[in-house]
């Protein structure tokens, strides 16, 4: 069908056979608005990767796609100018399901470069689907003295009710705050009143569409940003600005997998991971798979695959010493992943295996707390 826009603004679909070609429309002039700079405000860098915060209609498919770069975001959200001066780095324009470890590495390098250049903080605009993976990846790859804040929106930027503006303003405020780690800043509730600051390695998207989908898992949020006052409150466990020295370790081992166990799962599925350097399992409950899978896991481990157990419960830690199956898993060489989120464990595994080859050390590193991903104590309930 050909889509016709009527004078009233309505679109209708008509059979293309009934249409005659008249000519191309006049090219519309793209408006470039100068972004004002104020000397008394801190400098931030916005690195844009795409996602809903910067999406608008794609006439190719009729659906929403990512097209804005950081400059467009500033034009669309003038309130940001009250918070800081911005440098904008268009890194990618992808929906976050198309994110790859390769782009994480580019992102880490871009962020490193900006921090090295002396900005007070970084904002990374990102699609929400895999934002938690990217936040974890950057957490491991960079030691940052300044806030590195991921932000996105759950409702597309082309609607008046979009959460993009408030999230972006709160993210900018968090990026100028006393925070000194990688975080995600998104709506705290369905109201437009507060954003929460979540640790990059402990955050998860817990709802497919709500504004307040992002939740800190197993720990309290690092803090909050009130809206519209933009007041930032940090809790005591948030790493403070300047606490870490800037370093970049951007190597990743991509041959790692994440597999969710389910009742009746065939051992054949594990064969696909033969030759992989590492495999994270989201096991049931305390960290289990069925007994029938254990020989296959043992085989993987013997051939050099690092296997780490996490729990699909999302809350709580694994313990493979309680039941027989768990003990058999330990005997087979499976490493307990503590209270790590399965996704964070996967990203961590990529980083650990990218930077360390010694099997004993990699196992040790997987169980150590590097960036707040692995708590020694379970202080938090549901």
């Amino acid at each position: 069908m050909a889509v016709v826009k009527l004078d009233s603004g309505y679109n209708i679909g008509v059979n293309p056979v009934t249409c005659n070609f008249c000519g191309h429309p006049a090219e519309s002039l793209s408006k470039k608005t100068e972004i004002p700079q104020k000397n008394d405000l801190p400098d931030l860098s916005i690195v844009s990767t795409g996602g809903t915060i910067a999406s608008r209609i794609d006439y190719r498919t009729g659906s929403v796609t990512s097209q804005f770069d950081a400059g467009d975001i500033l034009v669309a959200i003038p309130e940001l100018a009250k918070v800081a001066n911005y440098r904008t780095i268009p890194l990618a324009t992808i929906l976050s399901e198309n994110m790859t470890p390769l782009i994480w590495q580019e992102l880490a390098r871009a962020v490193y470069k900006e921090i090295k250049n002396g900005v007070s903080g970084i904002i990374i605009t990102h699609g929400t689907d895999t934002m938690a993976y990217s936040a974890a990846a950057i957490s491991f790859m960079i030691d940052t003295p300044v806030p590195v804040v991921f932000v996105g929106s759950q409702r597309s930027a082309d609607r008046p009710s979009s959460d993009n503006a408030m999230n972006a303003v709160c993210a900018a405020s968090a990026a100028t705050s006393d925070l000194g780690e990688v975080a995600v800043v998104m709506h705290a509730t369905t109201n437009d009143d507060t954003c929460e600051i979540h640790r990059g390695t402990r955050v998860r998207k817990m709802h497919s569409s709500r504004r307040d989908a992002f939740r800190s898992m197993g720990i309290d949020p690092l803090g909050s940003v009130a809206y519209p006052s933009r007041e930032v409150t940090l809790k005591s466990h948030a790493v403070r600005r300047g606490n870490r020295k800037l370093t970049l370790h951007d190597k990743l081992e991509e041959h790692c997998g994440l597999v969710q166990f389910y009742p009746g799962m065939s051992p054949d599925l594990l064969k696909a991971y033969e030759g992989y350097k590492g495999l994270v399992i989201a096991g049931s409950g305390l960290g289990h798979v069925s007994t029938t899978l254990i020989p296959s896991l043992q085989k993987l481990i013997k051939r050099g695959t690092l296997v780490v157990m996490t729990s699909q419960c999302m809350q709580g830690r694994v313990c493979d010493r309680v039941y027989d199956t768990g003990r058999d898993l330990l005997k087979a060489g499976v490493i307990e992943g503590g209270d790590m989120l399965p996704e964070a464990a996967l990203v961590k595994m990529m980083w650990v295996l990218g930077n360390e080859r010694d099997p004993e050390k990699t196992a040790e590193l997987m169980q150590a707390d590097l960036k707040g991903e692995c708590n020694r104590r379970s202080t938090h309930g549901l």
Partner: protein
Amino acid sequence: MDYKTAGLTAGIEIHQQLNTREKLFCHCQTLLRDSSEHSGEFFRYLRVTESEMGEIDRAAQEEMKRERKFHYYTYDTTCLVEHDEEPPAPLNDEALSVCLTIAKMFGMTPVQQVHTMRKLVIDGSNTSGFQRTALVALNGALPQGGEIETICLEEEAAQRVKDDIFSLDRLGIPLIEITTSPCMHSPEEVQEVAEYIGMVLRSTGKVKRGIGTIRQDVNISIRGGARVEIKGVQELELIAEVVRREMQRQQKLLEIRDELLQKKGSVHNNAKNVTELFKETNSTILKKAKRIYAVNLEGFAGLVGREIQPDRRLGSEMSDYAKKCGVGGIFHTDELPAYGVTAEEVARLRAHMNAGVHDCVVIVAAVNDTQAACAVNQVIIRALLALSEKPVPEETRKMLETGSSAYMRPLPGAARMYPETDVLPVNVDDNRWNAITVPELLSVKAQRYAQEYSIDRNYATQLVLSEKLPLFERAVAEGIKPKLAVFTILSTCTELRREGIPVGKISDEDFLATWHAVESGRAAKEAIPDLFRGIASGSTFDEALRKLAPTVSFQDLEFIIHKIIEARSDFVLQKGQAALGPLMGVVMSEVRGSVDGKVVSEILKKEIAATLAAKRP
């Protein structure tokens, strides 16, 4: 008024809620709730966004003159779609079918593929900041002459509870929008067309009934004036009056412009901060104000206060414009001294503003400089329009109670339309279109009932317009006598309602059970009011039936009647068969309506005849 000379042109848009099972873009019921039943609430800010062509709609811009925070009530019958927390479900196919049926009734052409659009509405009535709407059919005809331009399927907006608080129960109910061409030239014609379209809509049996379920917007212009859309006319009877008053308003605005030109009126931005002048004022409004700004409108004396519609002046229009900045309104020297402002204060103000006798000074009271400047600027904009070539601005206005209207926002343009990317287009192919059967028009149905069932014409017309029409049709299909059903629905219920009986509590099932009881002789026709009184006060049908006098057997009845006649034999002898009427009443009250009147009358006739025969020599 001579409408032809004035060049009156009018069109209407009718918005009618559809009575579908689910809402247009989610699976919630189309159920209206009492706002006191809300189960939660949340709040949001809305921001103006560009159209996909990169433009900003002028109506949306106007709403955004001040930042607004909107509160929403949620219910256990609303879901995340109404909360703007979940993408919409596919377009409700039942609603599309109703829409296509109506399109066919007006002889329209359906669009081949229906595309849902987002119409930018940022007054808070839609959580998303837009109303989803789709053009479904084009080019229909009215039997009176004139055209139906388009039919659109839209989602209903949330209902304003008060100020910036909205209730989400109504949001998303399917709404059909029927737009006529500007084909009408008298107020009465507009009303007739509105009535006709309303009748066609109800003929589908798929539209909601009751106050607020149908709303008319009227588009009016006169020669030299401009197209003005007046929204939210809920009562049909007011349509003609709305048209008359808008004509009057446009004519007065034209007259005012001509006078202004004669008087060499002019408008400059000579706004001044006059807060100091009112430091000691007794006016409560001005005393509270942090900032008071004034502007002198040269040559406007007497005209700002000139009535343009009952209870509306040019000043009211300026006030409406200023209110967009959040101020409460304006004062002007045509109406001062008043409201606690003294003659001395007015004199000082005039002197301060260098106002001559032919000038009018307008003042605004605001909370800060930004708001004061915004409001005074709006007054200047409206004053400039008053003496411009087109002194009637193209506007969307809202109807006031009496039929006058107030400014809402500029007429929106095409820039407020944006494709709804979350909803897939729907094809309407020939098979679907051809399969649609057109229902009988209610006007035709009334005629048919009058003939087929020998019902009085007025009764038949009332019946087809009644909400109980489906009940009537069901009853007839179940073998109930049409006259019994009509009488109960129109007459009995009306009488009971007058008594204050809550007839609405009687379900269709109760109606049918009652009629079946009458038809089978278990209750008398005369007992219906008693039965209904019982049901309305909370009894089940069976309880109400039992509460009537115990059923009287035929033998008992004969005995009762015999006794009654025996006691009144003189009366019977004196009156002969004419005694039947009065005795009927006596018998019926004895058996408390539990017996069919026909049976009573037959026995009575027999007994009277027997008495007369026995006494005859």
